[in-house]
């Protein structure tokens, strides 16, 4: 018989991991296609959360309506982000520019800049404190399962993650959009030569990835009841670690790595002060980079 204490800690870890995974999915999708980190993903997540709670405050719609509003806002912010921070660096489509690391990595800076601008703007607009949310919308009603307690949000987040993961795998494997995303991710120049509209594909990737990011934001916001302008930062770091551990461009890999991360953090709290629990994530990152430079699930180089 396992000590119910560890069972509870394990459950908390899984639910933490699901939260990280939710964010890691969209993050990894965008990385898989462009091969650059989108630093503004955390802010898309925050914008999603703010859009959701503003909708709640304005007219208190049912849960599903909020989800659709958030998805729309996410799509819009993904589209604008691509337009402002990424497209200007793809102005030249000759082979040298496409292969130029400098051109690609300039978007690191531009997305970071967008993330800072968005965060500071939200701070100016809403203040940096937690926003007040109608308590009845929070998804944290306890459910007892024998010795462990979970909340309804755990179930919702689990279902959404499964849906996202499954839907994305289907999209990438069987739909025309998905095939073109994979083609661009594999070889942008080659994809262009065979007649794929690479710009449109990249925009679509951003739209899909950001919709997922925004949805993650509102779900986690309602799960914890904590929506504030810098809320995207810590999950962003954790999603980044999960992505690297999972092999940079494998979405299922990132999800598994996120779960491992969550459980490790939660269990490590037992043996050390929670102040050090954050270090577990970075320790994992270092260990992965030293011993598995390809990531745990990244041995096969097919992306996305």
């Amino acid at each position, binding site marked *: 018989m396992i000590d119910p204490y560890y069972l509870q800690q394990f459950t908390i870890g899984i639910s933490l991991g699901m939260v990280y995974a939710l964010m890691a999915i969209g993050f990894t999708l965008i990385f898989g296609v462009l091969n650059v980190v989108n630093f503004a993903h955390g802010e898309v997540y925050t914008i999603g959360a703010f859009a959701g709670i503003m909708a709640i405050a304005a007219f208190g719609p049912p849960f599903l309506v909020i989800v659709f509003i958030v998805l729309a806002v996410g799509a819009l912010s993904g589209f604008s982000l691509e337009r402002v921070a990424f497209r200007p660096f793809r102005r030249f489509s000759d082979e040298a520019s496409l292969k130029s690391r400098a051109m690609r990595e300039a978007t690191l800076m531009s997305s970071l800049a967008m993330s800072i601008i968005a965060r500071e703007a939200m701070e100016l607009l809403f203040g940096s404190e*937690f926003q*007040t949310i109608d308590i009845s919308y929070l998804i944290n009603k306890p459910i007892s399962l024998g010795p462990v307690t979970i909340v309804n949000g755990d179930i919702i987040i689990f279902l959404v993650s499964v849906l996202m993961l499954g839907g994305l795998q289907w999209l990438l494997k069987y739909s025309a959009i998905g095939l073109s995303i994979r083609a661009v991710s594999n070889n942008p120049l080659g994809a262009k030569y065979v007649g794929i509209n690479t710009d449109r594909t990249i925009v679509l990737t951003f739209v899909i990835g950001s919709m997922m990011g925004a949805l993650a934001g509102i779900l986690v916001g309602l799960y914890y009841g904590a929506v504030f302008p810098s809320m995207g930062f810590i999950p962003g770091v954790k999603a980044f670690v999960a992505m690297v551990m999972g092999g940079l461009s494998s979405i299922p890999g990132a999800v598994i790595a996120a779960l491992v991360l969550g459980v490790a953090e939660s269990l490590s709290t037992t043996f050390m002060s929670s*102040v050090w629990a954050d270090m577990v994530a970075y320790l994992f990152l270092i260990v992965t980079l030293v011993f598995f430079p390809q990531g745990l699930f990244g041995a096969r180089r097919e992306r996305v």
Partner: protein
Amino acid sequence: MTMSRRTTLGLFAGVAGMLAVPAAALADGPVYLGYQLPLTGNTAQYGQDFKTAAEIALKDFNASGKLKVPVEIIFEDSRSDAKEGVAIARKFVDDKRIVAALGDFTSTVSMAAAQVYQRAGMAQLSQTASHPDYAKISEWQFRNITTQAQEGVYNADWMTQNGLKKIAVIAEQTDWGQSVVKDFAEQVKANGGEVVFTEFFNRGLPDFRSIITKIERAKPDAIYTGFFYEDGAQFLKQMKQLNVETPVYSTSAAYNQKLVELAGPAAEGLFLTVTFLPNSESENVKTFVDEWKAARGGAEPGQFPAQAYDAVNIMLEAVARAYPDVSRQNVRDELAKTTDFPGVTGVTSFDENGEALKQLTKATVTDGQFVPVK
């Protein structure tokens, strides 16, 4: 001879100080005060509150005609960053017009800046720095908040009175959090109780569930917590999520109406000490609360803005007493003489260390309101 950079800086500060005193003393123009506080960054909400409170106090003071010349406050944003705090302190002491400084928000930043004020000889009055060592730095440091040395002992006695023996303690991992644990734990032991669990967490931790589960394994009678209202709301909500019903005691730092707003029913039954209750009957509290509500669209002020309001008023009174000789030394001396100042956070006097002596009130959350415990 080579002069070290430190000596050079020291000389500069010294010269600036010498120049500053006569210039400020002779001025017929406005008297200037400096206020360093976080106006952006993660703790911006506190700094913004202080600013509003200071503006209310300043407006009323200037309108009252207690002083023939107007007083002005120069606000500088420290972002709760110790490096910024020191830079601002240097800027303030180099500004010949400024006679005294208010702030900063956190103990860490206030203590870093205090080194500069101490060397230059300028009074520093923090509305919130509650680390035990802050006021001891030099004769130039003052504060308008009860310390954990006072609150911790008071809370330990309160919990002993209620028959709680085995106590778990958690606090944020800051200078302040350390002092919450230390002074409380000592008094619990002195009262014959036992601290069965101690842990620190990083401020802004989103998920307390692992810690709560760990606390529950130690089976305490009660949990004593050193957190601010946002962490507090998360902690209380997640206690409820996990169906944990151990009573929670906290310090005045958790006292904020926003705590109840964020945590909802989960905040019910939280015990804490306060020095300010906005629904108090006294006249000056009513005035402050009304003006705050007018400035902030109807929201009630928490304890921190009230402390900032009192701190600014205490400073303004000291300036008024020092007038017309408004030198840095003289303002400091008048500040030290503050006795029985009738503030909104209770009657306040400074002891010989610049420590505020205040009356503490026991409170609890009932039906979404902070009410005094009889």
